[in-house]
């Protein structure tokens, strides 16, 4: 029996979908059987981040309304045998799926997969309620900005009200050089404010833009710092103890490059 984990944030644009794609792929690299569920009905994105947009025939709404069998809607990943995507519908809205239907769906997926990773839409309305309906664990993604942390705090409250009492935090797009200068909130600041456990910290990394352009999750890029951070997060999800990335590791050449505007 697998586990259902929802990736949420409240605010849009902080990296929920990127996080879902990378965690899911990271778990698949480790040999786990994984399905990614896109619940952002009407604003489907996880398919393009995974590079699977051309393979969609059926979607989540077809599955819950009985328009197709669950197996028919699952899209197998290009790279991994045991990684699948259940895409969101693009032409419907969030009310096309109910909380009950989501619970049933995740129950079924749990029987087949080790990890069911649910990508939650931004906001706190029906889409959010659907996404968390069948979840057993929750991940809250935030960036070191006032608005993102504020929304994350609201989400933590709503998750707790829905009995997801131990959400884990991912701090995304942190810029160590700005933290060092005192111009960006650091890890400790955000943990203190949100008062939840830290699952991982992902540095700002241009490799994310490139990997999203290509439709290949950065977790597969051995050179990418963000990819390394996501690999560590995937390991922590399985219960492994992995120390945080040393974001201060800022070598002479990196500094020199930045000085010349190339870093």
């Amino acid at each position: 029996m697998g586990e259902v984990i929802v990736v949420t944030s409240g605010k849009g644009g902080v990296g929920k979908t990127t996080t879902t794609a990378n965690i899911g792929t990271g778990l698949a690299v480790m040999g786990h059987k994984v399905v990614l569920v896109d619940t952002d009905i009407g604003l489907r994105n996880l398919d393009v981040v995974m590079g699977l947009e051309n393979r969609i025939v059926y979607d989540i709404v077809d599955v819950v309304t009985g328009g197709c069998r669950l197996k028919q809607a699952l899209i197998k990943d290009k790279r991994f045998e045991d990684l699948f995507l259940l895409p969101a519908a693009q032409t419907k809205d969030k009310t096309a799926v109910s909380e009950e239907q989501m619970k049933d769906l995740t129950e079924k997926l749990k029987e087949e997969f080790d990890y069911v990773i649910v990508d939650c839409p931004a906001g706190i309305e029906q889409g959010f309620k659907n996404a968390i309906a069948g979840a057993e664990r929750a991940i809250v993604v935030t960036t070191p900005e006032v608005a993102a942390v504020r929304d994350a705090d609201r989400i933590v409250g709503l998750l707790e009200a829905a009995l997801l009492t131990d959400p884990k935090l991912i701090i995304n797009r942190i810029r160590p050089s700005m933290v060092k200068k005192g111009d960006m909130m650091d890890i400790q600041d955000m943990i203190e404010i949100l008062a939840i456990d830290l699952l991982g910290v992902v540095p700002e990394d241009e490799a994310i833009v490139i990997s999203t352009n290509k439709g290949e999750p950065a977790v597969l890029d051995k050179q990418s710092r963000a990819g390394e951070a996501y690999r560590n997060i995937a390991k922590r999800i399985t219960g492994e103890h992995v120390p945080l990335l040393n974001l201060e590791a800022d070598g002479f050449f990196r500094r020199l490059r930045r000085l010349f505007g190339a870093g």
Partner: protein
Amino acid sequence: MFEFIQRALGLKRDEPSGSKNTAKERLRLVLVQDRASMSPATLEALKEDLIRVISEYMEIDQAGLEVCLNSEDESVALVCNIPILRLKRSAKEETAS
């Protein structure tokens, strides 16, 4: 030029401008407000519970009862205005019997 070399070698750090402290302070204040807000349904449930408990001790004007959260600066207070109609002389004994 000397400064340039120092910076390249990482010997000279930029002075901390500390806008993160502004961010933290603003966030702290905004969260005090956010966390102090309760949904009308929760507030109503609290009101009903209060009526039930207080009615064991005194007769109150249920229609005139007001419950709200007041936040001032950094602290939040639950403010209740409960008009009493009549005090029960032996409250506990009465409910016990």
